[in-house]
């Protein structure tokens, strides 16, 4: 029951976020505004347990949620045939650079954090 209540909180926060995004033409997507709203709502103790149950269920299987979009790669065979190698080079290099910079920066900024 808790996870269902939690899902209700998640959807309510997202709906509110989508509404605000639409009304104010905010640069943030609706779910992101929903995230901030839920962050504020979590200060109320009766929100916490349900949200924990729903969030953990949803985030445990987070990678499943990317499969439908990923399969969409089959639609772009034209682009892939033309630019596939170059696009892959960009993705691989930029991802490695991003990973390395983030990890090295976090380590550099927190000297107390001994490995």
């Amino acid at each position: 029951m808790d996870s269902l209540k939690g899902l209700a909180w998640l959807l309510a926060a997202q709906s509110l976020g989508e509404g605000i995004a639409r009304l104010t033409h905010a640069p943030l997507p609706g779910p992101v505004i929903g995230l901030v709203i839920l962050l504020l709502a979590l200060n109320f103790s009766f929100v916490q347990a349900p949200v924990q149950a729903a969030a953990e269920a949803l985030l445990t299987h987070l990678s499943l949620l990317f499969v439908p979009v990923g399969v969409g790669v089959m639609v772009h065979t034209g682009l892939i045939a033309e630019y596939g190698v170059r696009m892959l080079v960009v993705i691989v290099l930029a991802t490695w650079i991003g990973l390395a910079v983030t990890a090295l920066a976090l380590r550099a900024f927190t000297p107390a954090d001994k490995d």
Partner: protein
Amino acid sequence: MQNFVELWVYLSATPLFGLTATIVTYVLAQTVYLRLNQAPWANPVLWAVLVLAALLTASGTPYPTYFAGAQFIHFLLGPAVVALAWPLWQRRLEVRRRAGAILLAALLGGSVAAISAVGIGYALGLPTEVIMSLAPKSVTAPVAMGVAEKIGGIPALAAVFAVLTGLVGAVSAKYLFDVLGIHSLATRGFALGTAAHGIGAARALQVNADAGAYAGLALGLQVLLASFLMPLAYRLF
């Protein structure tokens, strides 16, 4: 045989097909992944996507037909972004204590990931709309789509790039961190969530709870930073 073909035509056109195919393929890929002691190259998203794309292509099923069913899973990405409030809130004391370092690393890592994607894409002569679809690739798919739309990219392409980025991160990060001598699991998780969003975070979560929590935190931060700063940066330059 005739009956079988008719049955297939009927089934493959209902939403039930896309939904069933996605979950069954993913469960199988996940089982193999666990059997192989979670080897990075056995990533369940990678193999589920490859198998499904091959199946659809081989059977001549168009993507929209598949997506009619798969959209029920896709839809949950929105609530999943909202759900990131939980790991963020859970770590709020630690976040407050290390706020400077965490924010700076997220900002630096996120912008370097986006800028290097745009820079390398430009250097390789990719079309502008492809480059603008590559820019938000380190942000989780649904947000990347929204950002791409605002900065002149193709949302559907941006989502695919985001998934590929997540896969590259999940599959190769371990080796990269080993080479760089980064051993702290929290730092590894944080970098994965920053540069390889949800798929990277999912990988971190499977390896270690601490790494997973930091990955979730980084993912949430990146979503906030990128969706706010990227359209702003686009308007300025």
